[in-house]
């Protein structure tokens, strides 16, 4: 990994991240155990009850995360490396956030139109392409996907008002 060498600004330490994630896992494990206990985690009239297996799964998950937690609590904060550099994390968000918007748009605009917007935006924002170039590129790629899935493979994907207006 590049975390250690990069002179990038600090965000959180690996230790903090490890501890947070371990605690999150322990919380998930408690939820799993709680719900399994609710529906019955013992021996029923017809063999093990529904919650029997998941209950012990939850228990094992709790125990293993607790051990991970303790092994990291023991380590000193000073020696811990940076989890991710600030600019690195910004790069990740730069990819992640538009993708979330794209996924959210699929329901309204259909997958092809939102893909065209997303591709064009991505090329402009991260690739640094001129808008005059990225918009046609996004449109062409979306049309290609449309041809590939709707025409060639005959897989129906979510379509929006634009496709409806064009008669598909």
């Amino acid at each position, binding site marked *: 990994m590049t975390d250690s060498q990069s002179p990038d600004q600090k965000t959180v330490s*690996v230790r903090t991240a490890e501890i947070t994630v371990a605690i999150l896992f322990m919380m998930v494990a408690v939820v799993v155990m709680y719900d399994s206990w609710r529906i019955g985690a013992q021996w029923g009239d017809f063999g093990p009850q529904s919650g029997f297996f998941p209950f012990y799964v939850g228990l094992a998950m709790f125990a293993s995360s607790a051990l991970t937690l303790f092994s990291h609590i023991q380590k000193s904060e000073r020696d811990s490396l940076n989890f991710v550099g600030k600019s690195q994390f910004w790069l990740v968000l730069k990819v992640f956030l538009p993708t979330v918007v794209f996924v959210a748009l699929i329901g309204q605009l259909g997958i092809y139109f939102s893909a065209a917007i997303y591709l064009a935006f991505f090329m402009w924002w991260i690739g640094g392409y001129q808008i005059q170039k990225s918009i046609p590129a996004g449109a062409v790629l979306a049309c290609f996907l449309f041809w590939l899935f709707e025409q060639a493979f005959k897989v129906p994907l979510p379509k929006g008002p634009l496709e409806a207006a064009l008669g598909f």
Partner: protein
Amino acid sequence: MEALESLYHGFGVLNDPQNIMYMFIGLALGVLIGVLPGLGGANGVAILLPLTFSMSPTTAIIMLASIYWGALFGGAITSILFNIPGEPWSVATTFDGYPLAQKGQAEAALTAAFTSSFIGALFAVILITFLAPVVAGFALKFGPAEFFAVQLLTFCSFVGMGGASPFKVVTSMMLGFALAAVGLDSVTGDLRMTFGSTELLRGFDFLIAVIGLFGVGEILQTMEEGLAFRGKSARLHLGSVVQTWRKMPGMWVTLFRSSVVGCWMGITPGGATPASFMSYGLARRFSKNGRNFGKGEIEGVVAPETAAHAAGTAALLPMLTLGIPGSPTAAVLLGGLLIWGLQPGPMLFVEQRDFVWGLIASMYVANVAGFFLVLTTVPLFAAILRVPFSIIAPIILVICAIGAYTVNSALSDVGIMMFFGVLGYLFKKLHYPLAPLVLALVLGDMAEGSFRQAMLLSQGSLSIFWSNWLVGSIMMVAMTMLAWPLISWALERAKLKREHEVVELD
């Protein structure tokens, strides 16, 4: 020889133009997937799986398996030319592959990589041909307790041989089991962990998880490294290919050792990635050219590539015979079997001969075809990598979204994919292994089913797992694997202590 007869029968199944056509489509797509970072064997197959729902299972598995072979070949191209492993199992190939390319010997490195991949795969396929029917015949005697014991062994092996922190392996595995349990319990009809949500009734589909964890997660991590492709171009000429081939017989020891390591790691759920590292390490230690490793030594390309391909191929042996996949990609293929309505396990060899032997025969043909395909099309695939990542990345993400949607035609699945993407990124950053999660998610229902059946047979007594020598010895091995981190830690301490005493005596 019964196996040869069945194999002959398998070639008969393959003798269908449609199957051959899909094999080539699969191979080409596979190499493409292998070359592109963010699209790997596991999620590439997962994305394309829904497209095969309408095909016959035999055609579908031939195409999907070919994607896997193609991806195994393709990973080497980017490792050698660009110093970017297209697949996790080709990381070890970069150690010597890229230095070779820098020295202007990219052709030799590529030829050696492809040829040794091919040899590793061939070794594994021959092993499958002769060993699979034997294992399947043996497994026909298994009851639920034995099946659970074998499944337990699979999961315990992750702890014993995974290399990652054993606690993290268990956490990741248990998360997989817990996610597999969500939804309607098919035995009692109870709702588990749905918390009143109708979206969760269907449970978590492993295909969505694979696409998110391996696809979206990988892209996010790749982005963090601010990827820019700066690579060597390559075109393979017959002269240099033949020249490299001449050197290959001299490395037969490495080839053989790597094939054995690969097959072993593939059958046990180590998978192709640890196999490639282990094989590289062994070769560096035992080869007489060991000192040159890392500076551009052909043998350093041969060792990991042979092992990775042998492991990838051998991973199908336990999947076909026991219903237990040896690698994440094999797990996705296993999920495919379930979707096509086939029950994986030893009965497959009795009831679905066309399917099983068609697949095994296709492994021979696809690996030969794939070998020549990559040898001839390297410049084409290398050119794809010259397309900037800011264009490739969003296309891959759109394809991931489409793949996630098509599994159940549900929009909410695309959101779940994004969630798994974040999880995959976190897992990679904190070194939680992904393979146990995927395997547990795929095998969860089966493992729980065989556990329940065994418990019913024994009226709730765990003693059924020690009731005969077969199940007892499998359980013993499983327990040893589970305790292995502890055992090796104790051995290490004992050794240190002894050394300490020796020093004191001096």
